[in-house]
């Protein structure tokens, strides 16, 4: 019966347990608060109902009571606030060395591309136990990438990247929804997240002949002629891109920013806005010349220039496990 009438969503990611724990805490807190208020209401309503000849007793108020029922709830609220913030920070900070998936949303479909090169539409295959970072953008309006079983949601905006991450913990097929209203077929912009055992996933991955995303990025990089200015061998008209990803960059106007996905994206589409110190604003814009998918490939390529030579997925997964173990011990 409960297949047709579930009362609790699947719990299939590392974050889901944290969210559920806080949710249950809040259910208890708000249950106690309503019990307090409603039982007082009902008791007073019954006990002090009108009786002929009995007058109400006038009470002015009580400052100590007012302070009590302001301060005590506030302190309870602060516990909820801090707990909520901790859960949120964890869910917003992708662990290093996550597997990356690029997401392009459009009315009304999800286009997903693994950094290994596999492309999917409205479906995402991921292995159990691996951190997956989503680098998302939209071709048109605002969408929102929502996987209830992972308790994960992030709006996907046109003109910029937003990031999210998860680690699936239970094999199965889960709903993917668009949660930000996006027009006629908003409710049709749904899909599936297919969580597989690592071995199955490896098999699935090897089924596709596509090369890694960064390789197609390298091809586009050459085709568009980027390579003529951004050179690794000699100083060119543009900065050398090797090793810059994730590093601070000194800008012409004196600011220092971190070279993240959004900065690389912006530098391709609107090169004049944040020029690197020591260079002239001579780069033309590529707005309209590259699609979102090509842009993702370019970003993936630039990122690959900052990584040691590509490791096999297996070793990446192994490193990942070590990292998470290390992170876990730090927390404890």
């Amino acid at each position, binding site marked *: 019966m409960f297949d047709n*009438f579930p009362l*609790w*969503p699947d719990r299939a990611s590392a974050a889901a347990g944290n*969210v559920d724990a*806080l*949710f249950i805490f809040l259910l208890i807190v708000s249950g106690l608060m*309503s019990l307090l*208020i*409603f039982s*007082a*209401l009902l008791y*007073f*309503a019954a006990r*002090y*109902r*009108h009786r002929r000849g009995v*007058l*109400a*007793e*006038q*009470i*002015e*108020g009580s400052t100590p*009571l*007012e302070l009590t029922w*302001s301060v005590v709830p*506030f302190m309870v*609220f602060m516990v*909820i*606030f801090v707990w*909520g*913030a*901790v*859960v949120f920070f964890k*869910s*917003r900070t992708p662990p290093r060395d996550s597997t990356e998936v690029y997401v392009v949303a459009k*009315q009304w479909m999800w286009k997903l591309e693994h950094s290994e090169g596999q492309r999917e539409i409205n479906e995402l295959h991921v292995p159990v136990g691996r951190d997956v970072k989503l680098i998302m953008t939209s071709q*048109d*309006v*605002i969408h*929102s990438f*929502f996987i*209830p079983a992972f308790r*994960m949601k992030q*709006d996907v*905006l*046109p*003109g*910029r990247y937003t990031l999210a991450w998860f680690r699936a913990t239970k094999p199965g097929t889960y709903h993917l*929804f668009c*949660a*930000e*209203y*996006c*027009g*006629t077929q*908003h*409710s*049709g912009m*749904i899909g599936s997240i297919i969580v597989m055992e690592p071995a199955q996933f490896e098999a699935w991955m090897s089924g596709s002949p596509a090369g890694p995303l960064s390789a197609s990025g390298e091809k586009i990089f050459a085709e568009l002629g980027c390579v003529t200015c951004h050179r690794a061998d000699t100083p060119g008209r543009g900065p050398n891109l090797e090793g810059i990803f994730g590093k601070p960059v000194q800008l012409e106007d004196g600011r220092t920013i971190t070279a993240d996905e959004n900065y690389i994206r912006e530098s391709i589409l609107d090169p004049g806005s944040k020029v690197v110190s020591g260079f002239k604003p001579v780069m033309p814009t590529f707005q309209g010349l590259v699609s979102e998918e090509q842009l993702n490939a370019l970003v993936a390529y630039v990122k690959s220039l900052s990584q040691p030579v590509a490791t096999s997925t297996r070793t990446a997964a192994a490193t990942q496990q070590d990292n998470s173990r290390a992170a876990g011990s730090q927390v404890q």
Partner: protein
Amino acid sequence: MSMATATIQPVERENYLNKEYGVGSWLFTTDHKRIALLYLISITFFFFIGGFFALLIRLELLTPASDLVQADTYNKLFTMHGMVMVFFFLIPSIPAVLGNFLVPMMIGAKDLAFPRINLLSWYLYIIGGIMMLHCMLTGGVDTGWTFYTPFSTAYSNTKIVEAGLAIFVTGFSSILTGLNFVVTIHRMRAPGMTWSRLPLFIWAHYATSIIQILGTPVIAITIVLVAAERALHLGIFDPRLGGDPLLFQHLFWFYSHPAVYIMILPSMGVVTEIIACFARKRIFGYSFVAFSSIAIAVFGFLVWAHHMFVAGISVYAALVFSLLSYAVAVPSAVKVFNWTATLYKGSIHYDAPMLYAFGFIGLFTMGGLTGLFLAALGIDVHVTDTYFVIAHFHYIMVGGALMGYLGGLHFWWPKISGRLYPEGWARLAALIVFLGFNLTFFPQFVLGYLGMPRRYADYSHMPEFQVLNVLSTAGATVLGVGYLLPMLYFLWSMRYGKPAPDNPWKAAGLEWMTTSPPTTFNFETEPVVTWEAYNYDEIDSAHKQEVKVVG
């Protein structure tokens, strides 16, 4: 108290209703009470339009497939439902009807400070309303009432500019009402009516007016910017034109979050009056209740980005807005505690207005507590943009604001119409509304946590959501009956109701010291106030002595 004590009045006295007859005497009136009635008729009209859309939405969701209407139609239905209910019903509801009628009377004034501006505000509302009706009849809008960009400025093919202008015009009616109240409350109080003697209904309306005056211009500017981008392709919100879509959300919620307090604060004012009267008591902690209204109005302006935790704002911004959202929860909680404490050692009567007030406290508490869930960052990520949010804000805006509005209409109906409504039917309606409401919206909390997104025309790939949706639709039909009943018996009572005595509830407050219905200038002579608000001890002990003498 029993209605049986009503005494039949002699030949009908002159009052604001029978002073003049004819359409012209209504359309050109500057009497705040007649304008209140004009508003009552107009917002009731829009309430039933919005309610009709709601009914269609619920019928569509009865089955998972998109089968009753097409997806585009469904999208327009929830958009028009939201726009009509928010801008043409909830925001004007209590201030423009009960506030208009009562603010001058409660402070002992003849009228509002600017009677002609008051009439102008109704005309602006009507012009905006006609524009909105025209927009709906000629195609409607499909953006959701939130108008998110760049969908609204570049992708939707519906009548966004027209709907925006309708809201723009109506916004001015809201600003003018607020302005009128602030000036009236400052300048027109009767001698002796000090700030600390004001009914808390007045404090609530004062706080509401501040929000209307400061907040509404921001939505007006936002609408102008949307229209400019859509019509003239100025790059403001659309990234393809160099704009920022998040800027729109900041501007929109800067008004639309405080707008929730425009809806709920007056309702809190109504409930405060009702509880004092039917518990025969001074309100517990008068000054705390008064200042909590002001605190809600002020803090209400500082929490807007809690609608945007997953929208792409920085985690640090999210942190600040989460913290501030908990700050605004405190004055709301303080009110609930004070209402409860007011019942302590009271002498409680259970007439229909009090049933609505009890309903208000119950539903508002549920709405407020689920607000704590949404303000918690970690939980908001999962439940935002799902039915959890829908349930939460309906508990506040329908469970709270609308229960207060209905309670207030019953409470002051004898004063407004000069007639008594049928008490038995009214109690039954209050019960039906309460049960129907919970059946409609409680299942939606569960749906939301399960992950059903809002604004979905079709959930045929998620049949597991159907049982809860069926419950919700069943509740909505019950709720519809609960809302139709009062309209029917109020209309009935205008002709067949018993004539109301001047003070059927033996309530405190200047509005009860004049005739029912009042004369055009409210009072024969300007009242002089020498007592505190809610002096039920004096009223009841005086009454007791009278009884003794008679006996």
